[in-house]
């Protein structure tokens, strides 16, 4: 875990409202694991903004993030250019548990939940299957990146303006019935996560999901980022920044 000032080496856009930044932070990249996040200071803000790590390049010593413009913090961040410097704290949280025995892996992403899953596709030994859902063709992101590393990529849009029309859960239901996956990893809006968790549970497949909650410190000290989790001692408020953001789907209390 490091807090420092790091140079932006590449900045770009995925669509009109979705941006990406690659910054150089060799020590952070060395430590980083798929599914972890970074906490970024945005100009004039008291609280840092949590953004998932999308890709780790240990050789180059860089980390890439992909994010949507939501409010003032991300609006400021979207204006960053190559050569600018960012105050970043990371890597934070626990990543996705990845094991080499996970030969058949399914990743399921919805909207801005797609970026943290790219690293899993990078990692999966025999390539993974990916189901990526977006509102419409104007909100797509990282399709080409996934196509270059994943086995099968299924793109869904709510209105059918790109790929298949429908929700990711419909495609996921079909896939888990056809193929014996060893694990499912998902990130996206809560209703999607809930549905995917239920489908995986039906088939007895291990499922890991990445959660979001509003954060303060980002490191487990202030206890604001609570989420309810089943533990050996009963239901407890654990903390997304330190105990997560990735949780075992069967332990999450919705």
């Amino acid at each position: 875990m490091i807090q420092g000032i790091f140079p932006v080496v590449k900045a770009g856009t995925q669509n009109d409202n979705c941006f990406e930044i690659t910054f150089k932070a060799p020590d952070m990249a060395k430590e980083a694991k798929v599914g972890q996040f970074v906490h970024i200071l945005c100009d004039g803000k008291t609280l840092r903004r949590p953004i998932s790590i999308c890709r780790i390049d240990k050789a180059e010593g860089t980390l890439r993030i992909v994010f949507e413009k939501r409010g003032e913090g991300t609006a400021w961040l979207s204006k960053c250019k190559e050569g600018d410097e960012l105050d970043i704290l990371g890597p934070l949280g626990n990543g996705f548990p990845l094991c080499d025995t996970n030969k058949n892996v399914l990743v399921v992403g919805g909207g801005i939940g797609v970026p943290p899953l790219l690293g899993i596709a990078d990692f999966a030994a025999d390539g993974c299957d990916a189901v990526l859902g977006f509102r419409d063709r104007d909100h797509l992101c990282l399709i080409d990146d996934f196509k270059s590393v994943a086995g099968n990529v299924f793109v869904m849009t709510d209105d059918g303006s790109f790929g298949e029309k429908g929700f990711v859960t419909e495609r996921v239901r079909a896939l888990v019935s056809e193929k014996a996956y060893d694990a499912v990893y998902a990130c996206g809006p809560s209703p999607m996560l809930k549905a995917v968790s239920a489908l995986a549970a039906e088939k007895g497949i291990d499922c890991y999901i990445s959660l979001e909650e509003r954060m303060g410190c980002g490191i487990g000290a202030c206890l604001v980022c609570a989420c309810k989790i089943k533990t050996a001692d009963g239901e407890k408020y654990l903390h997304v920044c330190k105990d997560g953001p990735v949780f075992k789907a069967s332990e999450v209390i919705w």
Partner: protein
Amino acid sequence: MADMKVKIAGVEFSNPIITASGTYGFGKEYSNFFSLSELGGISCKGITLEERQGNPPPRIAETPSGILNSVGLQNPGVDYFIEHDLPWLKTQDTVIIANIAGRTMEDYCTVAKKLDATNVDMIELNISCPNVKAGGVAFGVTPQGVEEITTAVRAATKKPLIVKLTPNTADISQTAKAAENAGADAVSLINTLTGMKIDINTRRPVLRNNTGGLSGAAVLPVAVRMVWQAANAVKIPVIGMGGICRWQDAVELMLAGACALQIGTANFTDAYTPIKVRDGLEKYLDDNGYASVGDIVGKVEVWE
């Protein structure tokens, strides 16, 4: 080099910078950034008799130059703290302050008694947390309430006792005096100011608890005023906090009458804030020819 040491109720601090309760957990996470021995002290997360789960999320919202929080005293309980957190904290070579809270007077006294039997350095009585229904706010808002609870806890422990005052009161000099009369060794202030933020699109409060405690830069002028009033009302030491982000803020609070300081919210923005404030304060003392940090305490020259 100015002497940065301060002494409060017989306890020596290597410097006046303490991290504020609830923002620093039990220190472990922040020890990733620097040795905790660089700090004058650590005020731990508020602890209660039994484990508490706290309020449902969202528990935090950003507001102009500050934040609102409604954690609601999530903590593992005093027994767990004594067994699992305190032993490690006591190896960190800094002053360890246990911050305690409760629902009833008996709860406070039981927690204080349990801590009395440990090697914790000081106890800070949180009678001002605005988040827990009937969990302290009743004691903190009136001088009678402050006197009652302070008297009871004073009888339960020989540890140096700091009473942490709430700004949500009519007259801070009266509650400060009440704490002093009841045997407090020091007072600390300010705790958070009750606030609220509404999402104009959903028409819902952002915090699931509807209201929460305001902290950060926004509260600094309130803290400076209240520390000044409290310091003028009592003879016991005043520990100042509320909105400290830079060394200049620390100097202001000391001039107003604080002999030590706590830093909370600013740790979220920059984990190195306590070190930067400490070093900036030391340079200010050197640049202005002060031999010791105590030399600026209460030295504001108010207009007639």
